[in-house]
């Protein structure tokens, strides 16, 4: 949240979540799914959309409940709201995309403890009316999807030579196995954040 003097409009909130305050590259929030499911683009996209769904729904509910929230119970209310929507998303995936549900495994229920969602509920939805809360959730959610996709793009391209399961690099490409394994996740995220920092530094000069 910026200072209270310049309260941003709904559209500014939406735009801010995508790049200037990108949850993955700037705020380093919700790292667990970012690192875990990005060895394929399809998994990254599903995870991003599921998280955005939960983020928007929980922001709506928290924003509607904001007058009733008791300070000492608010974290519990956030968590239970989020857990309900995660259960909905999880059952939906299990019913309609069973392969994806199997691939993502425990990382779908782990959306409950994604710090991004709780921090948006605390920083934005519990203080704002419905429209800014939704705009904020959509913006931050898109930023999160963007972060997941860029990581998934690099890892799947270098690690399996394919994009969304379709082979794009020539057969001669030696697949960098390390990219689809856990160290590749840390390495790729470090590289991407370094590129973002470098770009910022250059623009300032």
């Amino acid at each position, binding site marked *: 949240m910026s200072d209270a003097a310049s309260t941003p409009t709904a559209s500014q909130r939406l735009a801010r979540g995508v790049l200037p305050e990108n949850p993955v590259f700037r705020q380093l929030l919700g790292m667990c799914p970012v*690192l875990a499911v990005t060895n394929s683009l399809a998994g990254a996209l599903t995870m991003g959309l599921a998280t955005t769904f939960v983020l928007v729904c929980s922001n709506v509910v928290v924003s509607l409940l904001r007058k009733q929230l008791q300070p000492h119970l608010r974290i519990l209310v956030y968590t239970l709201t989020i*857990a309900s929507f*995660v259960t909905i998303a999880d059952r939906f995936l299990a019913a309609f995309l069973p392969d994806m549900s199997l691939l993502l495994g*425990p990382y779908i*229920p*782990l959306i*409950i403890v994604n710090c991004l969602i709780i921090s948006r509920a605390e920083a934005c939805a519990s203080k704002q009316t419905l429209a800014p809360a939704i705009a904020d959730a959509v913006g931050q959610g898109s930023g999160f999807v963007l972060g997941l996709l860029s990581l998934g793009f690099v890892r799947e391209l270098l690690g399996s030579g394919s994009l969304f399961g379709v082979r794009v690099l020539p057969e001669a490409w030696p697949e960098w196995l390390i990219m689809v394994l856990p160290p*590749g996740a840390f390495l790729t995220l*470090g590289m991407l954040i370094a590129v973002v*920092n470098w770009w910022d530094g250059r623009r300032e000069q």
Partner: protein
Amino acid sequence: MTDLILIAISAAIVNNVVLTYFLGVCPFLGVSRRLDMAFGMGTAVTFVVTIAGTLTFITHCYVLLPLDLAFLQYIVFIFVIAGTVQLVEMVVRKFQPALYEAFGVFLPMITTNCAILGTCLFVWLKGYDTLLKAVVFSFFNGVGFTLAIVIMAGLREDLTFADVPKPLRGAPITLFVAAILAMAFMGFAGIGTAQ
């Protein structure tokens, strides 16, 4: 007995909760700047995860499954974890003030630590069928978390003296160190997997 030892080794080292499942990466990257804080955080997580793992196993086996309410699993689990954290905080503050000094400040952050919920889910996903196995698995997952976060803190204390290129300062270099650490832990792959 053998399978308990295998579960312990596999949970703490081979399938390290931070470095192979990425659970609890936020405190791993955030808190692990100082050795003593990292150890305090690790102790708090180990303590809570053992209790939460035991309680969620009991709740799942003896309440949710008989009542056919397995779809409520996530909501109930997170409720049990939040309750455990509150309870542990109160009990420790009242009876063990010294212990509270050591890791009390970390307790409120733990409800949203993925390592706790992740462990409780893995107990059920990996199909551990007895309470003893669930307790051992939970405890050694906590030990694995402590191990990773303490090693990381030690490396980062040394890193403060290194001359890191400007764009790499902060998160990127930490992630690179984590990548190398994860590669080192991959060397254990294959040990204790034959369960």
